[in-house]
């Protein structure tokens, strides 16, 4: 897969993934504040998306 896109991307397309990750992070941070147990578990998953995306990108990079 090429790094480059075929067409020039719109601003919305450029920020599609960053916004999704940002919303998940923020929801996780707030959810963790509002309670324990299931809310904490959900907070870990949501806040954990950003580090997971980083690990995935680094792993993909080193594998080729």
């Amino acid at each position, binding site marked *: 897969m*090429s790094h480059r*896109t075929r067409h020039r991307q719109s601003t919305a397309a*450029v920020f599609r*993934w960053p916004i999704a990750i940002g919303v998940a*992070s923020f929801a996780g941070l707030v959810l963790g*504040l509002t309670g324990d147990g299931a809310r904490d578990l959900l*907070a870990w998953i949501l806040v954990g998306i*950003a580090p997971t995306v980083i690990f*995935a*990108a680094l792993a993909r990079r080193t594998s080729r």
Partner: protein
Amino acid sequence: MSRTTIRIWYLIHKWSSLIPTAFLLMLCVSGLPLIFHDEIDAAMGFDTEKSLSGVASSEGGLPLDTMLDRALAERPGEVPLFMAFSQDSPLLTVTTGPAPDAASGDMHLQFLDRVTGEALGPAPVNPLLDFLLQLHTDMFLGLPGMLFLGVMGISFIVALISGTVLYAPFMRRLRFGTLRTRRSLRVKRLDRHNFLGIVTLVWALVVGATGAINAFADPLTDAWRNGEIAEMTAAYASSQPLAPADYGSIDKAMAAAQDALPGRNPQFIGFPGGSWSSGHHYAIFFQGDRPVTEHLLTPALVDAATGELTDARTMPAINQALMMSKPLHFGDYGGLPLKILWALLTLATISVLWTGIFLWLRRRGGEIDRRVDEIALGARKEMRA
């Protein structure tokens, strides 16, 4: 986005990140172990709380007057400043000092067991964490140091925003997550900087903003005392501050406060004349009664001489924001897994700062036009650098 616009945002990003970068690296490195302060304290044998068993000191135990007498007996000639409760164990912390308005450096903290009444001696200080905490909070410079780091935090937020603006033109022709490794070292760093920066953006904004708010904690507390506390205790404005010899029963004051705010546990008491109360009142701070409001404190002001309630009011929005910003900055509110995520995100932020420094140090030519090209063209052209 026009080249002129990119140029302006590039300059904003450059200076708002270059100026605080050394301090931000220091904050990340010193903050990393501070995330795990509970675990480090436990490993180094500083966990007094674990050795105590029985009802939590915020819920019951021996009378508070008895506990205060025991604490003062250990520190003859001193006056009480604060009494802090634990929500998990019988641990009670009493702070004393030479005068009601003693500076924090002259304060003495001691631990007591509210179930047995035993004085457990001075609150142990973990020298490693204490050093890191001081460095992280004010660089050993007191209030000016705190405010300076607060300004660095605000600059960090400007850097995050301007960096996000520049991300758009740079990524026009690149897929999300692109990390080119076979080009020059510069392209590799640039891709890593942009990718890690955008993925950690929201977390960094939250930790940066809450850190900046925390840096202004002292002026915000002073403003609250001089504003709302003065208003709540207006009837006492013309009288002299209460002498420590005239302080009445804390248990009576606590009962009056709990009548006004039923079903809540106290977190700490500010004694008269200190920065958390008026000259005449016990300011008893209660936690909220639901998980959402647990971090929000509501003070009840009780006349320290008579033990009668004067007023109980929630704090102003800005002070509530300050209280909510503490857990969001420390990351210690969701157990060990959240702390580990906090540490990983801190490491990613260090990498963003580090690659940013090198992108600046190893820039070529010094021509700003080349930097603007780099952003405006993104991957459209094979970058020459």
